[in-house]
């Protein structure tokens, strides 16, 4: 019996230590590399990021860079994900290695959540100020309430310098300029230390006396009342009244020192300005689409009709941030991340200019290791096996138009 008791005691002590440390080791999520683990259909059928630009690849501490571009809120938004009625434009970085100095959708500052419309294109920009040195993967990102984080393409950016040089000056409406990085920190430490010291003093007052065994004996033999002396009560009274006085006095002096304060600001921003893409004059019908597992290639049979007045060619297929280009039509010069760019990944059976009024059925192949690396091929295991993406067509003058595709996908394993 005794052995069992000892074992139980020992085990519960170990369990206790584990829970204790578990709580103390909690840290807010810092990793931003969920991009590959996110379900393929989430990346292909929700937010399509395009025209992305990272203004720098190397930034010094306190310097800024921007990540800008456009995103299309896909019209064929999956049933299983909540509509982006409450969304927040975020950046995927490992914790505050940059601070977000500003973020805009359609030119409007968006420090709060916004409501987005399906089928619309928005222009965005995020201004980042470098804070912590290192090599960081910087992603565009949209958090959707009920849908989770939707991570856009990421690019490696190097921050140089020393974090101790980082400053974050802000001028308040009361006219002072402060450094938000360590603003009011002394005040936080002061009040916490003061109150903790008072609490400890109260502990010490009681811990000086014999504690558990003698007091337990006294209480169980009915002499509990004798344990509390008049001095104890006096000490209690002093601490009680002292606490109330200190709270009242510190509150009053704070109000005097900070006469102007406002409540936290919150609320949803609606009616975001959309971006008008040039009207698409090309119509695309997906006749069939297959994904060839061994070849890491997607094949689509498309019937393309040109209803415009100038000949066009298909130059790019973009899905989940991976861009397949036909170099004869379009070459990327924006410094798009290598791992997401298949410069020669798009081949079209007949990509001669499609004349106005003409219609043509072509075989389009998008092949690149990115299908595997970015686990996009996993979409063949989705319950609703569909693919979606953006097709970009160019005419001879470099005018671009955007057409979305959304169709079932059949895998082939041979």
């Amino acid at each position, binding site marked *: 019996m005794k052995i069992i008791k000892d074992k139980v005691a020992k085990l519960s002590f170990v369990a*206790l230590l584990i*829970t204790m440390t578990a*709580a*103390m080791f909690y*840290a*807010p*999520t810092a990793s931003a590399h969920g991009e590959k683990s996110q379900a393929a259909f989430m990346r292909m059928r929700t937010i399509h990021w395009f025209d992305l630009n990272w203004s720098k690849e190397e930034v010094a501490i306190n310097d800024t860079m921007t990540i800008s571009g456009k995103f299309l809120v896909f019209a064929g938004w999956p049933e299983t994900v909540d509509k982006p009625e409450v969304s927040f434009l*975020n950046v995927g970085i490992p*914790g*505050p290695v*940059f*601070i*977000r*100095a500003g973020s805009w959708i359609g030119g409007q*500052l968006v420090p709060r*959540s916004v409501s987005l419309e399906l089928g619309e294109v928005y222009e965005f920009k995020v201004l980042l100020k470098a804070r912590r040195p290192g090599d960081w993967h910087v992603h565009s990102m949209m*958090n959707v309430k009920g849908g989770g*984080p939707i991570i856009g393409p990421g690019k490696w950016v190097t921050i140089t310098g020393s974090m101790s040089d980082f400053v974050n000056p*802000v001028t308040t*409406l*009361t006219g002072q300029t*402060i450094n*938000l*990085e360590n*603003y009011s*920190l002394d*005040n*936080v430490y002061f*009040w*916490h230390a003061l*109150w903790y010291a008072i609490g400890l003093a*109260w*502990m010490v007052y*009681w811990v000086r006396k*014999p*504690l*558990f*065994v003698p*007091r*337990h004996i006294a*209480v169980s033999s009915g002499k509990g009342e004798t344990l509390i002396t008049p001095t*104890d*009560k006096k000490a*209690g*009274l002093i601490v*009680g009244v002292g*606490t*109330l006085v*200190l*709270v009242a006095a*510190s*509150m009053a002096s*704070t109000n005097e020192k900070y006469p*102007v*304060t*406002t*409540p*936290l*600001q*919150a609320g949803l921003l609606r009616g975001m300005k959309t971006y008008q893409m040039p009207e698409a004059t090309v119509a695309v019908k997906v006749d069939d689409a297959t994904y060839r597992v061994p070849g890491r290639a997607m094949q689509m049979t498309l019937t393309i009709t040109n209803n415009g007045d100038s000949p066009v060619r298909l130059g790019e297929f973009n899905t989940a941030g991976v861009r397949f280009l036909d170099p004869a039509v379009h070459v990327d010069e924006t410094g798009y991340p290598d791992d997401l760019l298949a410069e020669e990944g798009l081949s079209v059976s007949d990509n001669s200019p499609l004349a106005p009024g003409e219609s043509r059925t072509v075989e389009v192949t998008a092949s690149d290791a990115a299908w595997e690396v970015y686990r996009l091929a996993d979409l063949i295991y989705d319950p609703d096996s569909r693919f979606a993406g953006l097709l970009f067509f160019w005419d001879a003058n470099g005018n671009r138009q955007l057409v979305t595709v959304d169709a079932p996908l059949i895998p082939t394993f041979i």
Partner: protein
Amino acid sequence: MSASQSAVRSRAEAVQVSRTFDWMILFTLFCAVLGGYHIHYMLTGGDWDFWTDWKDRRLWVTVAPIVSITFPAAVQACLWWRYKLPLGATLSVLALMLGEWINRYMNFWGWTYFPVNICFPSNLIPGALVLDVVLLLGNSMTLTAVVGGMAYGLLFYPGNWPIIAPLHVPVEYNGMMMTLADLQGYHYVRTGTPEYIRMVEKGTLRTFGKDVAPVSAFFSAFVSIIIYFLWHFFGRWFSKTDFISDDAT
């Protein structure tokens, strides 16, 4: 070993052993409360305690006292009715805040680099001291629940105001007005905590105009009283000695 055979040979030795026991029990109790209370508070108070841009005058003021009066009530029940020690609330809160400070400093700042001025814990000590004092002077659970619980809820906001007020100074940022605390939340990127998760300034107290903090504090105080009763009973039940065989009698 039976209780009739003493392990000590003299009174002086008995006192010494008893004192060693005191320190051991106190240390174990402190650590146990730290672990349990910290987890409990993180799961229930969580983000409201982690971030300055969650420390509003409605929900933070309401939630924090209600979920944090739990362990103080239970530990008080044990320490007062068994040992006549009016320490339970203070001990619990000191343990919790030590754990929180270790976590915020080592992990939030040391590991993830959030400045400490955005992620410091709430101050719960004034309320805890008053809870202990009311129990000491009144020697009554009901009185402690009603007067102490009330004070615990009401003292929370004023007890924290000197710490958070500087962060509620307004600033104009790119054409929008916000507080410095809002700006901290915006600047220091949290990928896992998007803005819409933030539960602040929500509720039906808007009809009370701009003085919502006192109204929230009163509401919180009333609920704190009920939670105090509940957890005081938990504490009493857990500190029963029925679990161990009592062959001394």
